[in-house]
Structures are given as structure tokens and as C-alpha cells.
């Protein structure tokens, strides 16, 4: 009996072995094809991503200006100039303030909306669609709509304030409120995106954990949230915070079209500084130095996110 099994196994193994040898010899012949298939992607990757990434760091060490016949290596002079420039510090401070406002706002609202939607059965997909709409709509077009809504004289916001007996305000023209107005637009746009990520996280929480919590005496919705939802959602939340922060660091569209960084630099942000230096004054070297600072922030956030992302997989 056992002999028969052994014989059968041997018979079964023989073609498999032959197949393996075949595959091996095939593989050698196929590695040429593999390079050919991957080559266009790798060449473009070198040309459009890795090369320019090295290029931006190299450029930041030169005084190159677009159209100039030559350039020279000037070491860290661009950085020295940048760190001595008041505008750079204002720009960095504004960017950090924007991130510090939009991230908690859009994450908390995204989580709140996701929890509300998930807490009942009715109209789920309608709500999801409505809250997601701002993510879809071209931001530049909607920024222009917001600008009109914030119009000091004929805007909806001031109109409603006046109707309520309150004083209107020049939201985008006042240096005390310009950045905060842009934050509101940022939160309005990012909430739906975060909501969808949280909804995916909520759906993946196993139902039996809630049953177990209920047996253990967690009767109110609030205690079930504290006992099950929040701990299970913590990795997703960290992940969403990191993504929101990365996206907020990149704020540009609304600034460029609505405030141009003003009034008096009150809404100047890093990418806008990079844009004006690099593409309006064509000071490529200095613009590259600003980019490197931006890159340092975003890359560290991205690394944080991928570490968290890996842990999330582990939890799931």
C-alpha cells in the first residue's frame, strides 16, 4: 500500500521536475524580454522622476537662472539666503498653520460623517455621494465659486451674516482672515475623501467584536465606540492623518488663484513661494532650495505613512 503511494508520488513528481527544468531554461531566454518590456518605463522613470529629483538637489547648490548662459556652484548660499529671508519663514509658518488647521478639521469631520453614515441603514449611498462631490469637482472652478460666495458686497456668506444682523467681512482681502478662508475651502474639499477612507476602515471591523462588547456589558453606542470602534480604527486614523497632512502641504491652487499669497504675504505658502521664485522670477537655484525644504517635510510624512500603512496591514 505505502509502496504504491510512493510509486504514485514518484510518477507524479517526474513531469513536475521536467516542467521545472523547462521553466528554468525558459527563464534564461526570457530575461531579455523582461528588460525589453521594462525598459520604456525605467528610462522614463530615470528621465522624469529620479533624474529630476537628483537635479532639484543639485540645482539648489547653484545660482542657475533660466536663460542664463552659465551657472556656478555656490554651495549652501541659496539656503543661507533663504533662511535669512523673512518671506520664507512666513511661508513656512503659513504652510504649517494651514496643515495644523486643515488636518484636524478634515479628519475629525471625515470620521464624524463616516460614523454617522455607518450608524444607520437609510440613504447611505446618497450621503456618500454628496459628501464626496467636492473631491470630484475641479478645485480651481470651485475655488472661484467660493471666491464669489466670500465676496464682501454680493457674496452669500456676508449676505447671510447681514440677514442675521451681523457685520460682513472682506474674508480674502483681509490679512487676518485670508489664510483661514483658504483653510475652510481646504477642509470642505478634503472631508469627503477622508470619509471614504474611514468608511472602508469601519466596514472591515469584524461584527463579532461588537457582539462580544455587548455581552461584556457595553450597552451604549458610546461605550461600544470606545471599546471596539476607536481602537480598531486607530491605525486607519493615523494613516488618514498622514495622507491629509501630505495633501495639505501641497496646497497651491486656491492660493494661486484667490490670494496670490497676499494680502501682504499673509497666505504665502511653500509651493506658492517655489512657484513664484522658480517660474515667475526664473530663479531656478533658489526655487530648488525652497523645493528641498518642502520635499524634506513631505518625504518624512510619507515615510511615517508607509510605516503606519504596514502596521495597518498587520492589524487587518
Amino acid at each position, binding site marked *: 500500500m505505502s509502496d504504491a503511494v510512493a510509486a504514485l508520488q514518484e510518477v507524479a513528481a517526474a513531469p513536475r521536475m521536467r516542467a521545472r527544468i523547462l*521553466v528554468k531554461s525558459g527563464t534564461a531566454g*526570457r530575461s531579455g*524580454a*523582461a528588460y*525589453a*518590456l*521594462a525598459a*520604456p*518605463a*525605467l528610462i522614463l522613470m530615470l528621465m*522624469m*522622476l*529620479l*533624474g*529630476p*529629483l537628483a537635479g*532639484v538637489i543639485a*540645482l539648489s547648490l547653484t545660482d542657475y537662472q*533660466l536663460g542664463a548662459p552659465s551657472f556656478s556652484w555656490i554651495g549652501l548660499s541659496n539656503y543661507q539666503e533663504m533662511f535669512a529671508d523673512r518671506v520664507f519663514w512666513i511661508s513656512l509658518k503659513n504652510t504649517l498653520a494651514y496643515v495644523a488647521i486643515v488636518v484636524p478639521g478634515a479628519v475629525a*469631520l471625515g470620521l464624524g460623517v463616516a460614523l*454617522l453614515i455607518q*450608524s*444607520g441603514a*437609510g*440613504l447611505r449611498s446618497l*450621503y*456618500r455621494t*454628496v459628501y464626496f*462631490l*467636492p473631491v*470630484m*469637482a*475641479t478645485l*480651481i*472652478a*470651485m475655488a472661484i*465659486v467660493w471666491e*464669489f*460666495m466670500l465676496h464682501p*458686497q*454680493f457674496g452669500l456668506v456676508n449676505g447671510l451674516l*447681514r440677514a442675521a444682523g451681523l457685520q460682513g467681512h472682506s474674508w480674502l482681502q483681509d490679512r487676518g482672515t485670508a489664510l483661514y478662508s483658504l483653510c475652510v475651502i481646504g477642509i*470642505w474639499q478634503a*472631508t*469627503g*475623501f477622508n470619509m*471614504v477612507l474611514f468608511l472602508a476602515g469601519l466596514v472591515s471591523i469584524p461584527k463579532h467584536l461588537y457582539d462580544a462588547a455587548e455581552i461584556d456589558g457595553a450597552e451604549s453606542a458610546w461605550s461600544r465606540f470606545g471599546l471596539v470602534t476607536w481602537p480598531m480604527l486607530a491605525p486607519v486614523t493615523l494613516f488618514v492623518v498622514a495622507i491629509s497632512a501630505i495633501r495639505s502641504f*501641497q496646497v*497651491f*491652487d486656491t492660493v*494661486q*488663484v484667490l490670494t496670490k499669497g497676499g494680502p501682504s504675504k499673509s497666505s504665502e505658502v511653500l509651493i506658492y513661494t*517655489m*512657484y513664484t521664485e*522658480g*517660474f515667475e522670477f526664473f530663479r531656478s537655484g533658489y*526655487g530648488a532650495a525652497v*523645493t528641498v525644504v518642502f520635499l524634506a517635510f513631505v518625504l518624512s510624512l510619507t*515615510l511615517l505613512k*508607509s510605516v503606519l500603512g504596514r502596521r495597518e496591514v498587520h492589524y487587518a
Partner: protein
Amino acid sequence: MRALGRIHPWSAVRHVLLLAGALVMLIPFIWMLSTASKPQTEIFSSDLHLIPYHFALWDNLKIAFAKADLWRYLLNGLIVTILIFALQVLVALPAAYAFAKLRFLGRDVLFALVVFCILIPPQATAIPVFLLLHKLGVLDSYIALVLPFTISVFGIFLMRQFFKTVPDDLIDAARMDGISEFGIVWRVMLPTAIPAVTAFGIFSVVAHWNDYFWPLIVLNSEHLQTPPLAVAHFRNNEAGTNYGPLMAAAMVIIAPLVIAFLFAQRRFIEGITLTGIK
């Protein structure tokens, strides 16, 4: 009575809160439609009303289309987004197949580079890529709009993950039939990957239809403008004077994607949240 009894108090609170939030989300859209439908005199009045007394949407649209060649800009948007997506697929799919199913020297190192490139934010490479396009003499052209995005490292990563799940037997069978490795990518792998390619396509088209940063940098000519650039241009020319046609133009620019989204929301949400995995 019984019907009332069935409504839980929480359910009512839930709907009230969600509807209030939904209204806030929708206000800019509602106000855009409302303003686009009002004649000039009603827009510049301190009397706040949602429904126009005189319905002027068609007039505003007519003015918008007369002042700006909106058809042309929509066509530019279509050309650019479709070209980008088609080239991304053409470049990424063979590479993804090689990384997923073929063995070659340096594969793991090269794939690690691909993953690293996903981390690079697009603004970071803008200045050197701009200088490169300047050297090549292709600034202010469709090439400048499309070329930098023909490589999607994220697309390679995504499709490679998907191809990993395709059984090897399928590929071996195709080889037995004498199909070349290149042929396998398009005749065997692509058909199995349609859902993943669709999700990636939505992600790509939405991102590039809405992109403002790159077209702003590389374009000068008005006739090449993509929709976001065109609407910003329209606003700069007409600022403070012509809000009706401006809102009508904004409406036209967002319409294609919003309508497509309303028809296939599940797919769109899936596609766009791919950035989450990034």
C-alpha cells in the same frame, strides 16, 4: 401611529445631522447654479435670493461660450487626459508584467526604485522637468502637458500587485500557443486586469483633468489651455464684472466629471481613493 413608533429617535438625529452637513457640502454647487442662472442686475443686488426672478442660464452660457472658446478647452482636456492615460497603460503594463511574472537580474532593486519613486511629490520635480522640457524645446505644447506623466510608477506598482494574482498556468498555456512575451501582456494579462485598469484610469483621468499646477507652468498659448487653466483665465479677465457667465463657465468645466461620477459613483470612489494606498 405605528409608523411613527418605528422611527428610532437616533435615526432622526442621524438624518438631521447628515442632511445639515450635506447642505454645507452642496452650498457652493447650489450657489454656482443659482448665480449662473441670474441676470447681472440680480447678481449685483444686496437682496439675497436663491431662485432667480428672471432665468438667465442660457444667456450666461451663451456669453461664456462667446467670451472663451470653452469647447476648445474641453477638447484640450479630453485630448490631454486620454493621451496621458493611454501612454501610462502602454508604458506601465509591460513593466508591471515583467516585475510580476518574469525573473531577471536586478529585478528587486529596480522594483524598490519604482516604490521609492511613488513617494516623490509631483511638485518636487517641477523645476528640473521644466528645464528639461525647455532644453528639448517642447514647452507650451501638448508634449509638455503629457510627457512628464507618461510614466506612472504608481500604475506599475498597482498593476504588478494585480498581475501577481494571475495564475502562472494561464501564462504557460499562452506560451505553449506560441504567443510572445509582449503578446502575453496585451492578450492575456490586460483582459484579466480590466477592473484594475478601469480603477487606475478613473484615478488618472480625474487627477489630470483637475490638474492646475502643471499646465499653469508649461503653457503660454491660450489655445492649448486645459479646463482648469481656462476657467482661471476667464476669472482673471472678467473678475468682479461678469459673475453670471463666470459661474456658467465653472459649471461647464466641472460638468463632465461630476456627471460621470453620478452615473458610476462606486467605481469613481474606488478609483480616486487609490491615492490612499499610495
